[in-house]
């Protein structure tokens, strides 16, 4: 009996101690999509989350093998687009996968293509969920936020096509990307055609324009999408589709009678430091100073600041440089956005005086026939009454027994001869060459500059100096400059040269050019332009350089891209029908979705 009592006491005792425990817990610091349907503020939070994914490294959930500095949408977007063109070259090789975009050797498992695919669909997942859950007509603000989601969907799809599909102009039936407009699902999916994607983009943009109303602009900040952003993107879409009259109509509607000068930012030199507040901006990815991307920024590859920030390993190409230097003294786009960094110490001097310049010319590197690249030979220049001439011994003091100079066979041996820089006029603009052993060698003459593996450096600071930070810029994703040039190109194709040149000159005027520097139907011929479209495309190149348009502008107009300039890429002309033009689709997708076919790619 005693035992039974004791056991009972023990049982009661222990059951009291171990009283029941509540297991139906919910996270206290997170939302679930189920909650959005009850509370539209959830959609607003998620929309902010979508914007953030354009610049922030996606830390959760991560991409396998992604590095936090590379897994950023805008960094990849601007690099993958721009480096495929002919505006810049890379000095030396890098293991960074943007190198693959640059030399058209991207493969499906490159971090760049994998991340852009993944991040794009992550943003699409958010906006698809928001569009699916949201209800129209609740309030002006809620409708606007919903409209932003439609805009973001259109933007992401258009960019996906730019990266992973052939231009629309090459055929609307070509495969583009996976079209998803609902919550994610698993199961067999295939690539939609570019025509189908563009149709979705057009309908989304129209819906966005409808929902975002007339004048309401969130917080007056270019970082949020608004009606103008959607209209501007529509003009880009129509231009890419070849619907030129629709381009003109859309841009005219946007301008509503105003002139380009009324919408362009009057101070181009500082525009990129204040994209969030400038009227030029239709939409930008807004970054606050603490969010600077530092050495992961778009600027970082173009510029090494005096404080050490940035890598500064990608420079303006010779053809781009020649185009800029036609009006170098006046063109804001050259003088405000470029600089020659000083050569390494000791400062190069010749016979006690600073050198007078530097001449560079491409020379072939190595002898691998499958991969012909051109580096630079460079020489500093001295000057006498006969003009500038080459100094044979760069930097080195021949008298120094510790630095005996050994020149290679193909170098200039006759140090007594003076090889002068000669000038010739091409298309009314001066160009330079030297004559050696009876042959003329074209050279580029620059101020003395620092070099990297013999490549002369030109830093570009277009995307620097927001809030005084050399690595910070709220990258413009669509701006008036482009929209005006969209119309110019449409006019050119609609055979309206005056209107086209008017738009071109609006852009040139804003860039600081005037008088004879503007383009006319009369002076374009002597300047080497055969068609108005040629003029417009060069203006797009100058105005939108480093913003990722160049290779698209060339290829969608079915023109060849001449990449025969010094750099680490293959010395070649890429034809518009080259199979390498679209990037490879992420291997991660193809492995799990065999219906997603591979792009043909290199070889």
């Amino acid at each position, binding site marked *: 009996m005693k035992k039974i009592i004791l056991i009972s006491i023990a049982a009661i005792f222990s059951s009291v101690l171990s009283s029941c425990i509540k297991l139906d817990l919910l996270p206290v*610091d997170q939302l679930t999509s189920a909650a959005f349907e009850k509370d539209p503020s959830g959609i607003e939070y998620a929309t902010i989350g979508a914007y953030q994914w354009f610049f922030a490294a996606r830390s959760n959930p991560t991409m396998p093998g992604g590095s936090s500095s590379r897994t950023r949408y805008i960094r990849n977007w601007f690099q993958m687009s721009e480096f495929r063109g002919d505006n810049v070259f890379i000095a030396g090789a890098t293991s960074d996968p943007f190198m693959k975009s640059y030399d058209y050797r991207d493969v499906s498992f490159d971090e760049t293509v994998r991340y852009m695919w993944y991040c794009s669909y992550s943003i699409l997942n958010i906006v698809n969920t928001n569009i699916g859950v949201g209800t129209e007509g609740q309030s002006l603000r809620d409708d606007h936020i919903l409209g932003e989601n439609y805009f973001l969907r259109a933007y992401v799809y258009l960019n996906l096509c730019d990266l992973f599909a052939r231009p629309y102009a090459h055929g609307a039936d070509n495969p583009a990307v996976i079209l998803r407009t609902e919550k994610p699902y*698993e199961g067999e999916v295939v690539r939609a055609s570019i025509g189908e994607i563009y149709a979705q983009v057009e309908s989304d943009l129209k819906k966005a324009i409808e929902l975002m109303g007339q004048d309401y602009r969130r917080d007056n900040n270019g970082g949020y999408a608004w009606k103008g952003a959607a209209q501007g993107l529509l003009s880009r879409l129509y231009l890419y589709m070849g619907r030129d009259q629709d381009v003109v109509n859309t841009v005219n509607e946007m301008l509503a009678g105003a002139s380009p000068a009324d919408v362009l930012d009057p101070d181009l030199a500082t525009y990129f430091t204040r994209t969030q507040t400038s009227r030029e901006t239709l939409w930008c990815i807004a970054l606050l100073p603490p969010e600077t*991307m530092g050495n992961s920024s778009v600027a970082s590859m173009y510029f090494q600041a005096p404080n050490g920030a940035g890598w500064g390993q990608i420079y303006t190409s010779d053809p781009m440089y020649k185009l800029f230097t036609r009006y170098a003294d006046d063109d804001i786009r050259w003088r405000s956005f470029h600089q020659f960094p000083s050569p390494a110490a000791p400062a190069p001097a010749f016979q006690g005086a600073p050198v007078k310049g530097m001449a560079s010319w491409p020379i072939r590197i190595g002898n691998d026939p499958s991969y012909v690249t051109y580096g630079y030979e460079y020489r500093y220049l001295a000057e006498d009454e006969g003009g500038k001439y080459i100094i044979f011994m760069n930097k*080195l003091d021949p008298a120094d027994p510790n630095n005996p100079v050994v020149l290679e066979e193909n170098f200039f041996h006759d140090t007594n001869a003076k090889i002068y820089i000669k000038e010739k006029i091409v298309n009314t603009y001066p160009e330079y060459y030297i004559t050696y052993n009876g042959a003329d060698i074209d050279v580029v003459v620059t101020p003395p500059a620092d070099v990297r593996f013999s490549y002369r450096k030109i830093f570009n600071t277009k995307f620097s100096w927001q809030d005084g930070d050399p690595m910070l810029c709220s990258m413009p994703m669509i701006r008036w400059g482009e929209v005006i040039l969209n119309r110019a190109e449409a006019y050119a194709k609609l055979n309206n040269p005056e209107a086209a040149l008017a738009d071109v000159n609006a852009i040139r005027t804003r860039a600081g050019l005037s008088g004879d520097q503007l383009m006319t139907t009369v002076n374009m011929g002597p300047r080497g332009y055969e068609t108005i479209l040629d003029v417009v495309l060069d203006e797009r190149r100058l105005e939108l350089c480093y913003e990722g348009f160049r290779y698209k502008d060339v290829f969608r107009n079915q023109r060849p891209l001449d990449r025969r300039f010094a750099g680490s890429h293959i010395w070649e002309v890429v034809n518009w029908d080259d199979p390498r033009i679209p990037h490879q689709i992420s291997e*991660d997708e193809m492995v799990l979705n065999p219906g997603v076919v591979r792009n043909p790619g290199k070889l």
Partner: protein
Amino acid sequence: MKNYRDGKGECLSFNDRPTAIYSFLMKVIQITTVLIVTLSTCIYASGRAQPVTLDVKKGTLKQVFNEIKEQGDYYFLYNERLIEGRSVVNFIVVNENIEKVMEKLLANSTLDFSIRGKNVTVFERKDTRNNVHNDRNLATKQQTAIAGRVTDANNTPLAGVSVSLQGTRAGTVTDENGDFSILNNSGAKIIVFSMLGYVTKQLEIGTGRLNVVLEEESTTLDDVVVVGYTSVKKSALTSSVVTLQSEEITGNVTPDLGAMLQGKVAGLTVTNNTGQPGTPANIIVRGVGTITAGQSPLYVVDGIPGGSYNPNDVETITVLKDVGSTALYGADGANGVVVITTKHGRRNQAPVFTVRANSAITQPIWGRFKVADSKELYEFYESLEIPNFEAEYPRSLLDRDFDWLNETYHNGHAQEIYATATGGTERTTYMVSLNHYNQAGSLDHTFFKRTNARLNFTTQLASTLDLSVRMNMSENSRGEEWGHPVPEMAYRGFPWDLPFDENGVPIDIANTPVSEMEWHYANRQNPFHGQLYNYDKSGGVEMGLDFVVNWNILSWLTATNTTRLGRETGWSKQHYDARDNSQVHAGATLGNRNVEEVGYPLPSYRNTTLLKANHTISSHTLGAVLGYEISESKGTYQIGVSANGQPSGMDVISTGTVSSMRITDGFATPSASWSAFGQLSYSYADKYLVNATFRADASTRFAPDNRVGYFPAVSAGWVASDEDFLKDNPVLTYLKVRGSYGLTGNSSIGDFLFLDTYRFGSTYLGVPGAQPSRLANPELGWESATMLSSGIDFTLFNRVEASIDLYKNVNKDLLFAAPVPPSTGFYSYTRNLGSVSNRGLEFQVTSTNIRTSDWRWETSFNMSFNRNRIESLPGEDPDNPGKGAPIMVGSADSHRQRMEEGHELYSWYVKTWKGVNPDDGAPLWWGYLRDSEGNLTENEGLTSIYDDAMPMWHGTASPKFTGGFINTVSWKGLSLGVNIYFVYGGILNSNGFQSDASGLQYNIASMDNGLGWTRWKQPGDIADFPKAIRNNPSQSGLPSSRTLVSGSFLRVRNISLGYALPTNLLSAVRLKSARITLTGDNLFTITKFPGADPETHLSSSGINSVAGVVGMRYPLYRAFALGLDISF
């Protein structure tokens, strides 16, 4: 200790009878004596000096002695005739100490007792003797001297044997010749010889000189093993466990218990991945069975899962490897269980103080690895056909040769001091300890400091009620590498870049214009400059409080309730000073950055209630455990603060610019769980053992419908050597066969993975945003592991103990963050998918080779073989219908592994390197060939086009076997221990040690590593490295089997030389013992690995991470330590 199983030695009596055990058993049945033993509870967990609980209705005194002996490891010394016929009736004691029990037991008899250590001597009470045996007393009253010599079986004299006269307090010890002499002035009849490690011997005092031979005692089968919630005698185990004592694990220069276990336990793979002080080793028990869920074993401290401890306070550590013992931990047992028991005092123990101090010097281990020096690098660059080479790289560079590697990582040091006091009174025991560990790493500003205090206190509240309180508090701080330029520059810095000026002051290269100073390295960064100001520190305080109530309800029934309260706070602080800009290359915020993060855990507790019963009826012993456990955590409150723009030299947040100030805070997720479990064990005659366990666990980690998991297991053992056909076998002195089968689980995943949560924390234009973390999985449930294990334990010649185990574990319904197409917006989400098996063989042998009074030589050897196999994967392989879809692991642009059914986890799947074409120095791979038009064909062969090469299998990072070999030799006070650890058969990626310098921005690894590496220079060269080409378009540096190398190695993990000062010397200064040790850790390694060291983690965290990569890491270290250990 004595093996009582042979039927002879249930007591140590000098008038023994072989049939005693049988008559004893018969009597037990006849008089229905009930002897209930409560197995030791978690309070008295060591199996030593345990309190005694008896409930005897009627029995003989001898039976009671036997019972006490079994409960408490005591030896009884008595004259058989003296206690013959004495019986005990209705004798009940509960949890009494031995003195009390003996007092009560002999209260009304003519007997008295004395306790000396573990020896309980029972003798006739003096007054009784005087009265009853007056005449004999008179006869023996005169003093006689007894003298003699004690030797071992080999006739070697034994020194230090204690010699006592039974029934008296007289005693002495033998000298170094084994000689003794003792005066018998009390008429004692019996002389007793005892020494640790030998069978105690008693002799009737006769005349003449005594020549005594002591037999070695070599079995440890009576040791009590703590298996977590319960303790069992080793002999009664039905599962595979390994127990190590305190002295077997300490001795390495490390603050980490894991590192101490390396090479000591079969089936345990312990790896260190870094020399960063304070980084714990990785422990895997019997192979990796899961893919993305946690792989570490469950730690059980003082009987309850979880908890904090200091390795110095560990008295025993038990590794539970199979389901026979891990099943009681159900959902968390699948990765094995490590049971840690901390030290405690003993009742009636005089205070013992121990102080241990160590001081060590550490040295980075570079193995074969070197970086190119100035000359090697220059010659390499010269071969690259760089235009204007001499202009860019003047020969004067050869005058500069800065050794970045060895200037960055140099010698470090470590000190440790540990002090304890243990003791007990009649009703209480205590153990207090204080420990301070301080290690400075080989990299400047890296360190680990820990101060730990513990109090273990037990008191008897009432005769049936004990209370224990255990407190542990530890405070630690750690200095980390402050960002990536440090290791990067050490391994890749140019010998031509001189980081110090002529005065030895680091150059601020980041702020020096290019026009003023050239810097060849890719980035203008000088970590030596940053080290002047920058730091990255972290630390925390960990507190644990256990409150244990133990109620001996009945003699056969005990209830224990344990409440554990834990608190853990952490902080970290990074400071990048305004005076150093190097960090901008690490992607850090320009200027300075200052971050502090602190977590405050809100109340969390765990409560465990146990009911334990144990009942023996004749040869039948029935045991039962019933338990209920709950745990609850409200989550953690996190605060993070950061600000930029501090003035130079200021590292306080508040001195930063207001606009950059950021404060984040929030809650971590709450969690809760309950578990109910029970265990039944039955043994017949200690020969046939069976055990059944069942556990149910519920956790908030899983979706409501799949929240509860059920985990049953059975195990059995047969002590074959107790059977007639093996009994008294001179060779095979002990043999047990055992086996177990059951189910355990794994719940090591994050919280709420079944919900599609949106996470806050992202902002855009300062506005808070939310981003989805995952896809929902309303089905998410337990991962389970079916474990089948069998083993034999045997002893040869009473001298060599061995265990051999075979096992097969199959983990299924893996908590697998399995891939989904990224077009869903995600890479993976956690589902119950796939299955992985591990089968293996392991053995452990311990042999006492020599054991004399002066000499002692013990050898222990263990080896484990494990084969892992992916049994099933989700999806369908398009190439192999019916098979799961293979999964590529790791970054797509790096060396990858592949999960495929039928293959091991961590199997490399990369392009096959075939060397260098002697004609042109081009790289060769195995791949598809092209026809004359350049179109790919189906034909395979050697190709120099990387893209045409095909990926193939290239072995696995998991070793074929690992093992350890431990030798301990001692001679008198001198001892020498050698501990060897070896790993065989894993393939590692030494990527980063074999560069082709595709970009001219970094230094390269030296080819001069003793492996005869060569680079192609001219046609006809048979070389390991292809022709060096600037910008390397040949892509020879891209992932291929070229950098996969064997990770096999054999390492002298530890050598320790100790000297114990002679006791006679010490007694003069009132010391009990003093010992000086000289130890060396990681003294040398035999390996062909080209990198610094092949030891690396052999596990990965899932589809993102590849196991077996050794890159530019903080080097492991070699250590030399001098230690002093005194007690008084």
